[in-house]
């Protein structure tokens, strides 16, 4: 019959591969989004060190603070995964706590971003100032937009669960949001290294 490549969890869909259509869609989307961020990062790196005037990364970046926000986002991935696990075990209350925690940590990350951006603007770095401002704000801004959409998605799921809208059999809905959320986290991992750490480490540029 059909070539079944069923996930180990024992889920088997009535599809050619045994995989769920929406999950396949989400992974295809994430593969596609890699190209989106790849292009933005490539643009950033091509222009790294080429600004004709400051401020430059070393003038504005605060690695300790950004490390904290990076840590916050990483922890949000953990709470996301715990939310999913709780739902699968039938604990909707626990799911709710963890998913709202994830959204909260995400909003905290965004809060850090907002403060950071305002700081930079005060120090004279805007979208228009130089190549660094242009590429930095566009890359991190679009990432932040992805995070924002993710937060809205998570909050929706959380509120939906109040009226019994999220039950253990609907775990896929949460799984899809979780995949998106983790992706947004891994993109930040790359941005943190390439933009922040490489940006100010002496001897690189």
């Amino acid at each position, binding site marked *: 019959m059909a070539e079944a490549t069923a996930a180990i*969890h*024992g889920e088997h869909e009535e599809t050619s591969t045994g995989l769920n259509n929406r999950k396949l869609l989400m992974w295809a989307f994430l593969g596609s989004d890699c190209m989106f961020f790849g292009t933005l990062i*490539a643009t950033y790196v091509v222009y790294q060190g080429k600004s004709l005037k400051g401020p430059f990364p070393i003038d504005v970046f605060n690695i300790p603070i950004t490390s904290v926000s990076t840590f916050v986002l990483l922890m949000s991935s953990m709470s996301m995964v715990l939310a999913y696990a709780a739902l699968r075990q039938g604990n909707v209350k626990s799911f709710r706590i963890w998913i709202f925690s994830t959204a909260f940590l995400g909003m905290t990350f965004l809060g850090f971003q907002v403060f950071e951006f305002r700081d930079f603007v005060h120090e004279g770095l805007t979208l228009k100032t130089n190549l660094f401002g242009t590429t930095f704000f566009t890359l991190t801004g679009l990432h932040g937009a992805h995070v924002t959409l993710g937060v809205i998605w998570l909050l929706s799921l959380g509120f939906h669960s109040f009226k019994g809208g999220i039950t253990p059999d609907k775990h896929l809905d949460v799984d899809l949001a979780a995949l998106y959320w983790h992706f947004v986290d891994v993109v930040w991992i790359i941005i943190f290294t390439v933009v922040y750490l490489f940006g100010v480490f002496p001897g690189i540029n």
Partner: protein
Amino acid sequence: MAQESGTEAQGAAVHSGHPTPFTYFKVAMTLSIITAVEVGIFYIEDLGKGIIPILVVLSAAKFALVAMFYMHLRYDSRIFTGMFVGGIALAISVTLAILGLFQFFV
């Protein structure tokens, strides 16, 4: 596709192929430690350009941990891995090609 051999790492998993919350916590701790190491190494200024491969490896490790455990790729169909890795591989290749064309590696 044959069952992945990751099941032996599951310990007290309720369903086979599902990591436990404890596994997730361990991954989270590992991610935090790697981040701390990255930031720590960052202050060793003598490394010069040598820091690049170190940070790349560390970041790749974090990326892989999140992908394999949090995004379940380790336990799921290889089709998902293929789609994701395909996108990543293409993005990296094209990025490196662009950088080469802009004499980044000269």
